[in-house]
């Protein structure tokens, strides 16, 4: 029950967080920004549009978007969104994300356009560097909380209260959130300049329903990573039992926490320029450093 609710809320709320970040960035630029429901309007609009497929493309182009969405929905089972219920191995979660990314990169190559190939190549380069970092971060998390299961991690934090080590890991998780959702300084989600794109270049050839699915999958991924961050940093408000009050409170708490993180992401993105492509590993090193420090602390403390 809670598991299903987790999926439902993650899918439904994701476009809101996406738009809210845009809104915050617009405010920082003294603009009004889009209406808060713009993400839903765009999704509905894209569903009505025709899906154009290049004659050069294969079945991968057709299936990459549905596969991405399906994988993200499955991954939503792993993260406590509204409440704690079910189980989710953190390494499996990581590789579910990798699976989605694999198909997305293939689709980028599949249409045969130069921009798609360029985006896929960059995305894979970045992934190759960020993946070991992510593994270390997750290992630190598992070590500190004594479990590989994300739901149990949230329970452990609820039971033991906040720890200094978790704050350090949260910083690493935040960097992973920025990298995986293709935000400044890694990528610029707002740009129209194909030559600078990473994530957007990969989905440039997507259209209609497929584009809608791709974008929704991307939004869900962001929500899940936010959910993971919240389970570690501030799991309070998660429903631990299946009562109406607990669930409603859980949903409310998640929306509030999600908007807070979105607000922070918006500010973070507004506070700096995009980094040079080859200087990105510096940012990843920071995440690596925080988690490695955590492991050292925990082992020798």
């Amino acid at each position, binding site marked *: 029950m809670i598991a299903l609710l987790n999926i439902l809320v993650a899918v439904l709320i994701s476009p809101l967080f996406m738009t809210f970040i845009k809104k915050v960035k617009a405010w*920082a*630029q003294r603009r009004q920004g889009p209406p808060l429901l713009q993400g839903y309007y765009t999704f509905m609009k894209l569903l009505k549009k025709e899906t154009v497929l290049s004659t050069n493309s294969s079945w991968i182009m057709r299936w990459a978007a549905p596969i991405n969405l399906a994988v993200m929905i499955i991954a939503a089972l792993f993260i406590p969104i509204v409440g704690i219920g079910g189980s989710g191995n953190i390494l499996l979660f990581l590789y579910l994300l990798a699976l989605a990314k694999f198909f997305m990169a293939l689709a980028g190559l599949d249409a045969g356009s130069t921009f798609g190939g*360029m985006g896929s190549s960059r995305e894979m380069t970045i992934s190759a560097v960020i993946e070991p970092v992510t593994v270390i971060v997750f290992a630190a998390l598992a070590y500190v909380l004594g479990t590989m299961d994300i739901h149990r991690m949230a329970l452990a934090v609820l039971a033991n209260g906040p720890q200094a080590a978790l704050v350090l890991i949260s910083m690493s998780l935040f960097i992973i959130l920025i990298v995986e959702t293709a935000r400044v300084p890694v990528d610029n989600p707002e740009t*129209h*300049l194909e030559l600078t794109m990473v994530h957007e270049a990969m989905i440039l050839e997507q259209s209609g329903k497929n584009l809608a699915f791709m974008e929704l999958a991307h939004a869900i991924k962001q929500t899940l990573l936010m959910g993971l961050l919240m389970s570690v940093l501030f799991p309070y408000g998660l429903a631990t039992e299946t009562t109406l009050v607990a669930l409603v409170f859980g949903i409310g708490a998640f929306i509030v926490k999600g908007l807070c993180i979105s607000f922070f992401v918006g500010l973070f993105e*507004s506070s700096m*320029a995009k980094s040079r*492509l*080859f200087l990105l590993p510096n940012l990843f090193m920071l995440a690596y450093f925080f988690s490695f420090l955590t492991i050292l602390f925990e082992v020798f403390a």
Partner: protein
Amino acid sequence: MKSNDNYTQMDENKFEKSISELEKSHDLVCLFCAQQGKRFVLYYIFEKGKQLLMMTKHLTGTTATSIAAQFPSACWYEREIRDGFGIEFDGLQDRRPLLLHEPYPDGFHPLLKSFKNQKIHTKKDVIDSYPFMPITGEGIYHIPVGPVHAGIIEPGHFRFSVIGETIFNLEIRVFYKHRGIEKLAEGKQPRECIAIAEAISGDESVANAVAFCMAMEKISEITVSARAMGLRTILLELERIYSHLGDLAGMIIDVAYPVGASAFFILREDIFQLNELLTDSRFMRGMMDIGGLKRDIEQDKLRQAGEFLTTFVQRFKKAVEAVQVPSVIDRLDNTGIVKRELVRPLHLTGPIARAAGVAIDTRRDHPYGDYSKVPIRLGEKGDVLSRFEVKTAEISDAVAIIRQVIASLPLAERRAVLPIKDGDACSLVEAARGQTMHWVSIKKGVIDRYKVRTASFCNWRAIEHAVLGNIVPDFPLINKSMNLSYAGTDL
């Protein structure tokens, strides 16, 4: 025909010798062709510091000798003349068409007097037949970009040869915007042509209109009143301010720091509104006239402008300080270097040349308008950061110039009304992008030949050199830092 400039006629025998002598000391400002009866005359305009050297060469047939080996910037001019008049240049390596794209029929040369805007039969199935420079090798792949782009920008094709992310070669192809402006002007009354000059490039309206009027005034020996001169200077500098503000904002947007860029956009909008207050047009169109201005600007409005600029300086300073963020500076620094050695051979002008450390400015070298003193801002490295800084400084200078002109502006006639004479003349103006040249020839009171060379025509070549060794994601930034005009290149 009477000419208002002094031309030296070049002899065919001594041609090569004199060209190789000029190569050492002179820059090629422009090379163009005019048809006189059945014969063709090539005009070579050279520049040495503050002196112009104008030469003509009367052709006996339809062949000429290429000077592209001595003056690399001549390559595009010669290709342009080849397309326009069908003149072949001996020794010209690059014989691809420049402005006539593939569908045009063979033997079609629109600038010939015999061509009278009639219907032409375009060729079919010739798309993609333009021979780009073949670049091959292990690991090299090509990224063709444009001419249709994702943003609201002008059309241009960029062909990158890339190894990994590093740019190995870039070949640009512009000239997708040909409107036939030079042909359009022929046979027009000079006053009708002011609007045509304003339409050459949207954000260089004032510079082009002033340059055209200056050439006409030179031909007709009209002296412009001090007031009209001052007002022209104000409008020219306002144009520089809004153009540079757009560039600064664009550079900051391209490194994904829109928070810093928004302040520049707001300032730019305020300048547009000031333009509208002064001239009823955000791009200051419809103001210039031969002999002065079409309308005067009231003293009261000028006073308001002066007051606005006082607050503008403070706001601009704050906006510049707000983008001094390490992540922004890191992107601009050392990116897209234009080497100093390229400035003369390619005749680069404007902020691009000054950012590379070369002190050239038409306002100082070939004085016009009401500039008592033009500070020349030089960069060192010639990278994007230098261009950013030069443009920043030039905005402040432009504000200072405007305020000074307003303070000392005399009351006088806005326009000197004198008859228009026949003849030809060349004029030079420093537009926001660099040196703009206009050459007008009047015969029987109407325009016989109108040649315009904006700064972008020469400056486009700089980008092919500036991007080498940079990575592909930095290209849009380098491009924006130069902000070249496609329309201004392709008349």
